[in-house]
């Protein structure tokens, strides 16, 4: 089992979600995050200009069986893409165990 953590643009979230549903990834979590990156955003407040590298993004955390990994990655590459700096990053790690609380069943069966 793998865990994919994808940091994506909030504006691309609906597309990513739909793409994941289309390939059968129906269970995942997400939350809004603030990060620091290469992108700079210009602001003006009451006549004072300032730029911030603090960027708002959405982090999507998906746990999948190994054979879903490539398909899922391709979906995110495609749906989260704009081509501009700041499209985000993907991190993959190995997950040792997974359980469904209600039935206590384990393994990949518990993922969906």
């Amino acid at each position: 089992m793998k865990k994919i953590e994808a940091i994506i643009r909030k504006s691309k979230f609906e597309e990513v979600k739909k793409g994941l549903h289309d390939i059968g990834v129906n269970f995942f979590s997400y939350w809004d995050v603030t990060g620091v990156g290469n992108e700079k955003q210009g602001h003006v407040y009451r006549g004072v200009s300032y730029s911030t590298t603090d960027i708002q993004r959405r982090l999507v955390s998906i746990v999948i069986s190994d054979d879903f990994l490539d398909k899922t990655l391709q979906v995110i590459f495609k749906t989260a893409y704009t081509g501009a700096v700041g499209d985000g990053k993907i991190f993959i790690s190995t997950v040792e165990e997974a359980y469904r609380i209600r039935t206590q069943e384990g393994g990949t069966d518990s993922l969906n």
Partner: protein
Amino acid sequence: MEILTINNVWMMLCTALVFFMHLGFSLLEVGLTRQKNAINILFKNVFIICIGLLIYSLIGFNLMYPASFLYGIIPDYFLGLFGIQAPMVEGVLDLTYNEGYTFYTDFLFQGMFAATAATIVSGAVAERIKLSSFMIFAMLYLAIVYPIAGSWKWGGGFLDELGFYDFAGSTLVHSVGGWAALIGIYLLGARLGKFDKNGISQAIPGHNIPLATAGVFILWLGWFGFNGGSVLSADPSLTSITLVTTCLAAAAGGISAFLFSTFRYKNYDLTMFLNGILGGLVGITAGADQMSPTDAVLIGLVSGVIIVLGVALIDKLKLDDPVGAVPVHLICGIWGTLAVGIFGNLAGWDQFFKQLAGVGVIGAFCCISALLIFYTIKSTLGLRMDGLSETEGLDIHEHGMDAYAEFGAIQEK
């Protein structure tokens, strides 16, 4: 009797509208400051209206409307208990007090006014002043300085005899609060992080611009009572022209601040737009019943430009005014007072110099008094929170509370 009834109903309605302005101030101030100080700033606003009314009944009202003056300047009234006793003792609740309203209505209307003067200070000194020190300042300023300044004009004092004109208080309310705000932010110093080590001004964005917007609309509505009630009767022609000039000046102030700040800074800054509306309202307040609609628009347009330049000036002077209280209430207050000598029925050099004299006298009195009170507090109790409390927020350090408890705590405890 019917005249009194109609007039009195109008005055009580206006009293309620001025009361509502305190919600407007609260929302504006909390919106333009940071989340970690939200409880603190609301606490100050709630405190001011409560203590303001009590103090005004105890001493303020009689001090502001004395029968006579000692040496021409000191209201001949000190420490008479409960200012609202006098005519009630005679059981007078009819036209013998005034054709416009009863004694009680007069007290309540003026009491609502008094509290606004201290509220102006609260926004400017926000996010760094000690709560206790602010409360002491507000009480002293409301008990002594505001009523004495007011007595010189509205209480029939020497500025009134001179011919100084201030319809609803560009000087007597807004500048009185504005001067104290200026002295306060000068003695306090800027918030940590407002100026970097090279002295360059940094932006500290307010945490809830929608609330600030609601605050400005409420203040605008409240101004129907602030200026409309200052007619002191329900006189149809005067109240209608007053409301028209008030609203036109507000609209023109907003538009000109929006256009001028967009031209200057290349962005559509809503907070400048909002301040511009308030600047227009303060600007028209001194002569709302003396202006034509066109005059009102011109006064508002100038006020809007003053706001944008005033905010920049405060930054340049290394002062820190989170909500723009000094440009809105002090600078536009002065402008509005002088505008009575430039536009409208009273326009003329003679009147202009009278207005200038009034601005100067009230300004000097307020600056000296505010300096005296603030400085005494600074050298005894201290004015400013320590650095850690300021960094982590006054809410947790002064109140032990969180304004948005379930929306993600900002403190690690």
